[in-house]
């Protein structure tokens, strides 16, 4: 615990430690992690796909050496899959087995009232912890030393599920009707929610979270990210590649390339032993960066111009 305290003592420290784990970030992101830890608040991360939203949660878990519990959201996700579920098979099996022993339990109790009283003494055995299957949210609350809980793509889930999250986000507890309220143990989990903004997240949820928007990185930051992730790339090529991607982002595309695409492209180029960008190389590898045929066709025509511009510009830097 002390180690985490130490790492999260200032935003700068957080940033440094994240960088040690090869996650290069802006000070805004570092501040978010710092505040989330210090204030014990969940972070809602929004931003275009591929800018490292999920990666931030993963790296934070790695950095703090905490287990990562991940809940992937999708349409139709409900409490049975997110919080807990009863082990129905076990319950059924036990009822069948116990039918035989019912006589012993009742031990010649006379009359209906007496039998029921006798049965009451056994309590709600079938709805106790032994018959419960914890799902990610409940698991996260039960982690003794805290953990990182990643609720991924919360915008994909339904509105009902959002409301389900409210209790755990504000009080770090869930209420199970049959058992009662389960509260987080000593250390509440660090919660990261990510959203791709396919729909507006409700105000109630936003109110309970810090809100972090991760935009596309600027040239300088992206260079450092590539440097950290693909260190074997020649610096000259790295500059050209980043400049090219930045140019692409200004074009009117169906899906603009994100950081993950830049990294993939860098790896591809390293694999091809490229030293510098040239139009043919770009044309051949464009499908790594652009994911729609329409986009690729649109860009094809401009590859030559863009490449020469980027190469020239890169030389000047």
């Amino acid at each position, binding site marked *: 615990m002390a180690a985490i305290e130490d790492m999260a003592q200032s*935003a700068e420290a957080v940033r440094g430690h994240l960088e040690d784990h090869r996650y290069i970030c802006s*000070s*805004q992101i570092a*501040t*978010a992690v710092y*505040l989330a830890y*210090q*204030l014990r*608040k969940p*972070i*809602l991360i*929004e931003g275009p796909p591929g800018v490292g939203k999920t990666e931030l949660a993963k790296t934070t878990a790695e950095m703090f050496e905490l287990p990562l519990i991940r809940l992937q959201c999708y349409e*139709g996700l409900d409490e*049975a899959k997110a919080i807990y*579920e*009863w082990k*129905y098979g076990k*319950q*059924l099996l036990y*009822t069948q087995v116990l039918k035989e022993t019912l006589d012993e339990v009742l031990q010649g109790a006379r009359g209906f009232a007496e039998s029921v009283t006798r049965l009451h003494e056994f309590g709600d055995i079938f709805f106790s912890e032994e018959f419960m299957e914890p799902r990610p949210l409940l698991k996260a609350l039960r982690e003794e030393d805290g953990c990182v809980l990643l609720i991924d793509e919360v915008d994909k889930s*339904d*509105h009902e599920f959002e409301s389900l999250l409210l209790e755990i986000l504000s009080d770090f507890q869930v209420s199970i009707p049959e058992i009662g309220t389960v509260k987080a143990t000593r250390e509440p989990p660090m919660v990261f929610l990510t959203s791709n903004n396919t*729909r*507006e997240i*409700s*105000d109630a949820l*936003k*109110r*309970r979270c*810090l*809100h*972090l*928007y991760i935009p596309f990185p600027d040239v300088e930051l992206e260079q450092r990210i590539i440097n950290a992730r693909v260190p074997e790339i020649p610096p000259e090529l790295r500059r050209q590649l980043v400049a090219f991607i930045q140019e692409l982002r200004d074009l009117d595309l169906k899906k603009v390339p994100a950081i993950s695409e830049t990294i993939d492209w860098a790896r591809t180029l390293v694999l091809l032993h490229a030293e510098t960008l040239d139009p043919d190389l770009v044309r051949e590898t464009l499908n790594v960066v652009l994911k729609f045929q329409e986009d690729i066709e649109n860009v094809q025509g401009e590859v030559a111009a863009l490449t020469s511009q980027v190469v020239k510009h890169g030389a000047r830097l």
Partner: protein
Amino acid sequence: MDRTLANFIRALRNSEVRISTAETLDAFNAVELVGYRDRAFLKRSLSLVLPKTRDEKETFDACFDQFFSFEDVRREAPGQVRGSEQPDSEGRAADDANADGQGEGEGGGGGERSEAAPAGGEQRRRKGKQKPRNALYAEDEEPDLGPGEMSAPTSALGTLLMQDSKVELSMAMSAAGEAVDVREIQVFTQKGLYTRRIMDQMGLIELNREIAGAREDPAVPVRRLGQELRRRRDWLRGQVRDYVERQFLLHADASGKRLREELLRKVKLSNVEHRSFRLIQEIVYKMAKRLATLHSRRKKVFKKGQLNVPRTLRHNMAYDGAIFDLRWKSVKIDRPKVFAICDVSGSVANYARFMLMFLYSLEEVMPKVRSFAFSSDLAEVTDLFDRNSIEDAIAKTLRDYGGGSTDYGQAFEDFKRSCLDDVDNRTTIIILGDARNNYGNPRAEILKEMYDRAKRIIWLNPESRNAWTVGDAEMRRYSAYCHQAEECNSLMHLERVVGNLLKTVR
């Protein structure tokens, strides 16, 4: 409680960033942790806690920069301005800084300051800067007394001014601003008024008396003090004016806008001036957003599909495990249809514009909308809206179909021919028009046919109810075949109608 932060949040709210009480508390916690020392860090931290969308973050940035600009005030405080004007005395500048430091350090007890040290500092400072400054005070016939011994000021404000403590001055200024409720400032003509009120609150009258008294005084040090005080008073007035200006920008701009919005909501849509269209659009968008969050997608549990085994077992345990009450996995999103038929002839065009705007702003939660426009002939304009932005589509619709004389009979006939078959019992039809048919054949029997097939027919009429049967209006005949006929001529009406629509349509 932290006054500054509370005021900042109020300013943010004025700029339309929605901040709840819970978020305010979070902000206080964050500030407690972060402190005010590192401005950039404070900004980053608050931008995580307060604004919750991208737009809000932009507003926040602007607002923060404007609100937390006290550093500038410090830089222009009297001692330093003058210090920079006398390059000949670096050593003295250092001394000045020293004295400043003292002044700030002493904080609240500043009034009781010993005379010798600050007066000495004053003297030295006056040496180099006296002449250039003097030109500004032409009304002042009195000869400049030059540097020399100066007596100590007696009035509270005078003491404060002579202390060179910018922090205290700006604190006093804020306190005075608070006392006269400068945040209530509404229109720019009030700036002068508030400047004077703040000056008065800070003790201007007393100071003026002292200055006037000092002028008549035979002793040179006292007269010298008078001159110095006057200079500082005028400097202070400039500062207060800037302060009021900032407050005005932060607080009044938004409340003025809110006032306008409030009015626009109620005004008749046909009377809206063209220059307010932008604002109306914003309001419509905002209203739509609110309705959208209120009526998010609803799902219907469906009676067939994949069996949800755990649920079924659990549910049937009560029946000794005999499975007869089945539970299904699939839920179906209910997506009924809405047809909007708009009269876009001259008199009603404006209403059509706003209703279409409203309907299409609700895309996220609204079922599929098909829209039709007519003045005499009816045509479907749905794909205009698919291909263009809302504003463009509306403009094109009005250009292509608007302007003719109205013929409801013809329009209904066209509707029957082109898409009556698509109307089913999940369809809601909204008709917007004044039902003024120029004494033509109303063809109410087609409306009856629509009425029989559709789930609901809602007629929105921009005219007030008592005009519905006057002249060539056919409302009486039509309303027999409407589930609901409403008067609708302002944004408020529109909001209510669309809100009800969302409730009933699904």
